[in-house]
């Protein structure tokens, strides 16, 4: 196992052995223009025929009644009500030397804001879910995305705790029910079927405000960074990119986000790491421990009875 392929920047499709990869495809979800309409959630469910999940009524958590990404929610729109502005945060404004469009207006800063953000599988460069999958059900497509093959997955559930973003989930199976793909790991396919035909992913297609942009990851990354600079300049100091750094803990993500606050505010990890980065060390330790066990066993033979 080449240690390189467990961590650091790389082109995942090429790394996976695709010879004529069409270029990595992904999302940029610009939460600054999201209006929380949930069209993405519904479009995804419609297209992928995902079972509905009525739950026990409202959650009392703003307008979010689907709560999290999971087996039956591959796009999830988070609603965050903030009563006080968070401390002007994180990344320093990039000075592009452009004239300011509007003077930062202290009065215009809202003392209350309602953040909305449509979350989805990150299609990690180093996808822990895929790394740990023992059946090869999860695989890397030619677009660099990560997809479950429903007919291969045996529902071992290993990918579930492996994902550092809490995305993938095994679909619950009530005894006797005929729910499609019950017992099988489920998550966004980045509409593999649609993009293979040159179509937009259903969620991106449905998004009225172009909060969800689909395209070449490199190009989206640039677009996102530009937009962050723009927003920063307009005084939106919290604007930042998430997942755009190929040197981050998962090697950057195929689905990137433009956030207005810290990722954990939206339920996303602030510094996720692909678990398999540490796997070589774990194997070494396990080897040592096994050797120790053997040695101990040998030692136990010394002595009477």
């Amino acid at each position, binding site marked *: 196992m080449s240690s*390189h392929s*467990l*961590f*650091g*920047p790389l082109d995942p499709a090429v790394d996976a052995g695709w010879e004529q990869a069409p270029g990595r495809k992904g999302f940029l979800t610009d939460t600054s223009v999201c209006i929380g309409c949930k069209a993405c959630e519904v479009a995804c469910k419609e297209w992928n025929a995902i079972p509905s999940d009525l739950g026990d009524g409202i959650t009392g*958590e703003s307008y*979010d009644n689907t*709560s*999290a990404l*999971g087996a039956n929610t591959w796009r999830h729109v988070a609603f965050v009500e903030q009563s006080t502005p968070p401390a002007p945060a994180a990344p320093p404004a990039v000075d592009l030397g452009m004239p300011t469009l509007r003077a930062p207006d202290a009065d215009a800063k809202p003392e209350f804001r309602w953040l909305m953000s449509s979350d989805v599988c990150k299609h990690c460069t180093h996808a*822990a879910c895929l790394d*740990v*999958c*023992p*059946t*090869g*059900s999860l695989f890397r497509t030619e677009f660099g995305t990560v997809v479950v093959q429903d007919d291969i997955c*045996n529902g*071992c*559930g*290993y990918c*579930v*705790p*492996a*994902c*550092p*973003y*809490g995305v993938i989930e095994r679909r619950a199976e009530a005894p006797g029910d005929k729910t499609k793909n019950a017992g*099988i*790991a489920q998550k966004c396919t980045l509409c593999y079927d649609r993009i293979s035909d040159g179509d937009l992913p259903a969620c991106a297609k449905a998004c009225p405000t172009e909060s969800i942009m689909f395209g070449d990851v490199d190009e989206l990354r640039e677009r996102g960074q530009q937009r962050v600079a723009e927003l920063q300049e307009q005084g939106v100091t919290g604007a930042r990119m998430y997942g755009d750094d190929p*040197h*981050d803990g998962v090697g950057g993500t195929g689905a990137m986000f433009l956030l207005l606050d*810290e990722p*954990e505010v*939206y*339920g*996303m*990890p*602030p*510094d996720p*790491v692909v*678990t*398999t*980065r*540490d*796997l*070589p*060390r774990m194997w070494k330790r*396990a080897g040592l*421990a*096994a050797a120790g*066990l053997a040695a*101990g*066993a*040998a*030692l*136990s033979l*010394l*002595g009477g*009875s």
Partner: protein
Amino acid sequence: MVPEAEFTSYYGRPVVKESPWQADIPAYLFTGGLAGASSLLAAGAGATGRSTLARNSRVGALAAIGASTFFLIHDLGKPSRFLNMMRVFRPTSPMSMGTWLLAAYGPLTGLAAAHEIVGALPVGTRKVLPSVFTRALQATGRPAGWGAALVGPAVATYTAVLIGDTATPTWHDASGQLPFVFAGSAATAAGGLGMLTTPVPQSGPARRMAVGGVIAEQLAQAWMTRSMGLSVQTLHEDRAGTLLRLATVLSTAGGIGVVLAGAVSRKPRGATGAQLLSAVSGTALMAASACTRFGIFHAGQASARDPRYTVVPQRERVDAGHPVRSDRTPPGGG
């Protein structure tokens, strides 16, 4: 204890998902350890002429690995597709590696145990069996036993990698030391089984293995808890805390029992008492090992449910200006 950390989350909802695994998986961790270490013990016992211990351990290993396989399959969302595990050989997937280990280990253990069982049958009964079979067993039983002993330690410790290689905070944070904890725990269990099943006069290695296991496990756990960080809290709380405290009590009691059993057995007419003590302690030790596995399992599940264990350490890294970056951290980790 680490002080309560301030952190932000989305309505307190988890960031990472807890594994969908039920009791099957900690049971699998336990039985795997028991089997692996038992194979080792059996091989040693066999080599040193402790045939009862060898036989019991071999049969024990087979039973344990059989249970283990059952648990593994039972836990699958689609058990009928167990064989899909055989589609790939994937070093990045501890479960894949574990499956291949089991695939190697299971038959070896089976052969070794069958050899023992057949060997223990009354001659008359043995004659009923086809001679090809008995001859084949004769030829392969012993080497299979050695083979199982060779693979056994890996079977006992790889499960630490299995759960360590996740984003579950407690498991991942513990992954550096967990193999040692599991190795110790496996030794404890196998030793315990030997003590339970084998007459005291032959079970010296089992007793020593058990005590060694207890000591190793305690040391490794101490090391682990020191290096884990915030998620260590989950080892002390709730169900996990109870189980792990119970594990300590049981292994301490078991350890004392071992020493006593040794002492009593040297007393005249101490044999029966010693045997009883040995059996009770052995059971306690096996239970201790199980409690450790269940405890660590539940600690991990709890750490995944509470976003604090995911968010706080990551936030601290970021705030300290040391987020994980590939150009700073050598590839492959340290």
